[in-house]
């Protein structure tokens, strides 16, 4: 009896050890962190981002990984809160020993985590938009940004207004990091395009009615309204405008470029105009456009895997994980410094545009990576130039 037990234990140990030695022969995995606001008020951002990085990591691993190294993802949820984001990033760096971080989803959480990654010297590819995430570049050595610049979105909107003879506008911005950054860009660039802001209103991310602000805009001679926010509250603005029977044009930010927001606004969003990455109107991108193939591949893969529509936010995560993967492939190991340098010198055709990183530009996108889009019969359609 005792001997049988002993031999069983020896056999088990042998199996364990041999499995261990087998694993040792395989190349060490690369650990990548993801910090997204998967739950909470910005869940519509974080969820597609998490889904996307999972999907791409599986795709890469199924093809044998990067130079034979598998990717291991460590995903954390910030719930949109700064303290949680800081903790999550520290956890990824100190506990999971990741070589690069994707996220966070929001401007506020990204800014809160900048000092952490700068000190730990781990590259972080934020999926948010605010320009201050990567500026000033000398203090943001380790931070890159996948979201298009707010200033470029504002430029596209103002160009469209100029072409359509709109000179006086009312702006309505959300009191979040994203909304506030948009507000300051709208105010800063207005003069350059000969546009006058005659009303400047704000709303909170939890607000459920913007009638009061819209009435104040209606009292002025504004010829268009710009609605700038990233959270679901923004979908109430088109509805309120319809209820108030306001006929003037509604412009929205690239933060509106999500089918869920458009669905929430329903019929009221018809005809509103906003800048967006090309992923939201993949079908209407010309065949010879360099992004066309990437866009179609991502859209098809995402929609068939998760049975829901692609978003620009998921696109940011797609760009981030591929940029990291390309950097890992190029440098051949997971040294954060080498990865950072590889990203800084990279050119990458992605979902949000054609990235051209440099020492002074850790965003790498410009205003041509936006298209002006309108909603027609519930569909996103690219406006003609």
């Amino acid at each position, binding site marked *: 009896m005792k001997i049988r037990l002993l031999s069983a234990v020896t056999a088990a140990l042998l199996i364990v050890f041999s499995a261990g030695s087998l694993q040792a022969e395989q190349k060490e995995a690369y650990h990548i962190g993801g910090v997204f606001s*998967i*739950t909470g008020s910005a869940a519509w951002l974080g969820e597609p981002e998490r889904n996307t990085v999972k999907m791409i990591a599986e795709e890469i691993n199924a093809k044998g990984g990067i130079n034979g190294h598998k990717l291991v993802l460590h995903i954390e949820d910030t719930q949109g809160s*700064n303290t949680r984001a800081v903790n999550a990033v520290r956890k990824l760096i100190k*506990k999971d020993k990741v070589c690069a971080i994707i996220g966070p989803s929001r401007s506020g959480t990204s800014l809160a985590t900048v*000092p952490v990654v700068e000190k730990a010297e781990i590259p972080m590819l934020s999926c948010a938009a605010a320009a201050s995430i990567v500026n000033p570049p000398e203090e943001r050595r380790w931070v890159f940004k996948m979201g298009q610049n707010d200033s470029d979105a504002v430029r596209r909107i103002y160009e469209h207004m100029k072409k359509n003879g709109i000179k006086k506008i009312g702006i309505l911005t959300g009191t979040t990091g994203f*909304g506030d950054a948009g507000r300051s860009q709208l105010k800063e660039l207005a003069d350059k395009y000969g546009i006058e802001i005659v009303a400047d209103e704000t709303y909170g991310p939890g607000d459920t009615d913007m009638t009061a602000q819209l009435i104040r805009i209606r009292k002025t001679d504004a010829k268009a309204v710009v609605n700038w926010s990233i959270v679901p509250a923004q979908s109430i603005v088109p509805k309120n405008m319809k209820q108030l029977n306001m006929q003037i044009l509604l412009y929205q930010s690239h933060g509106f470029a999500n089918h869920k927001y458009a669905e929430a606004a329903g019929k009221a969003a018809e005809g509103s105009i906003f800048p967006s990455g090309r992923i939201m109107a993949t079908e209407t991108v010309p065949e010879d456009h360099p992004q066309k193939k990437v866009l179609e591949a991502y859209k098809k893969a995402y929609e068939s895997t998760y049975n829901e529509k692609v978003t620009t936010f998921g696109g940011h995560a797609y760009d981030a994980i591929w940029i990291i993967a390309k950097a890992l492939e190029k440098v051949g190991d997971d040294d954060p410094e080498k990865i950072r340098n590889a990203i800084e010198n990279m050119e990458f055709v992605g979902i949000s545009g054609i990235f051209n990183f440099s020492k002074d530009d850790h965003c790498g996108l410009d205003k041509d990576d936006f298209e002006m889009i309108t909603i027609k019969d519930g569909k996103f359609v690219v406006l003609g130039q």
Partner: protein
Amino acid sequence: MPLKDYIGFCILIALVLLMPHLVANDYYLGVLVFTAFNCLACIGLCLLMGYAGQISLGHGAFIAIGAYSSGVLTTMLDWSPWTAMAAGALASMAIAFAVGIPTLRLKGHYLAMATLGFASIIHIIAVAATEITGGPAGLLDIPRLGLFGYSLDSDVSYYYFAWFAVVAGLYFAFNLVHSRVGRGLRAIHGSEDAASAVGINTNIYKIQVFALSAVYASVSGSLYAYYVNYIDPGPFDVMHSIVLVTMVAVGGLRHLWGALIGAVLLSLLPELLSMAAAPLKVIGIAYKPDYDILVYGGILLLIMMFLPEGLFAGLASASKSGTAFLMKLIKGGSIVRQ
């Protein structure tokens, strides 16, 4: 201070010194630093709630005042972090007097209402006064705290510093509680009429302890700002004030140790739950952070139902009856032997 509390201090200090050797990595140390901030705010809140019998639903606002004073004065006016922290504490004290003097003269829970409104106002100012507070985009590049020319750069050094602040704050609070003022406060909690009948100036006592608890909150906010190096209005909303009240209530209103235990427990709970998620997954339950709030609610409900005096009082009475039972057993045993 009774001997029991000295023993408590020894245990606390021993735990604080031991923790960095027990926890596996800096990440958990960081969690413990945030725990220390909550402890500091809860000690102050406990003085107000447990000893003076007043509820403040606006302590998040005093944390915000501390954090923003530190953030604004250091980044925009280049003040030293220490003077900025002191200025924040003074500002909090002044505001506490301004809010407390009219409301604390009234009997009943007027302070709770006033502070709830006050917390909303401070949050709105933090969001809307973009030129000063940075608005929703927040304040960047807040400096680290330095001590004797040595920057508290590492997690370990900030951990020791933050918990030193907790121990010092707790020691001060204990001394206050066991002084004439503390006895006066207890009398107010028991019966305000009786207290004023024996010659306690109840108004002044209540206002002073409210201002003191505001200073505790403000210092904890400043320490938060220096640790994270970035602040925005997010963490200082009304919900945070309510979480603080919950921490004190869960641990036990009537005792400072209770507030400390409540703060530690509820600060660590999200971590414990996320740790529990892995074994739960093995048995087929997918635990999501969404459920945290349900667990909080459940814990609060259970404690209010079965331990209305809080965890600390509950544990104390349990240990007392346990010892009594043991004594009985020993006695009974010795009788049988005889």
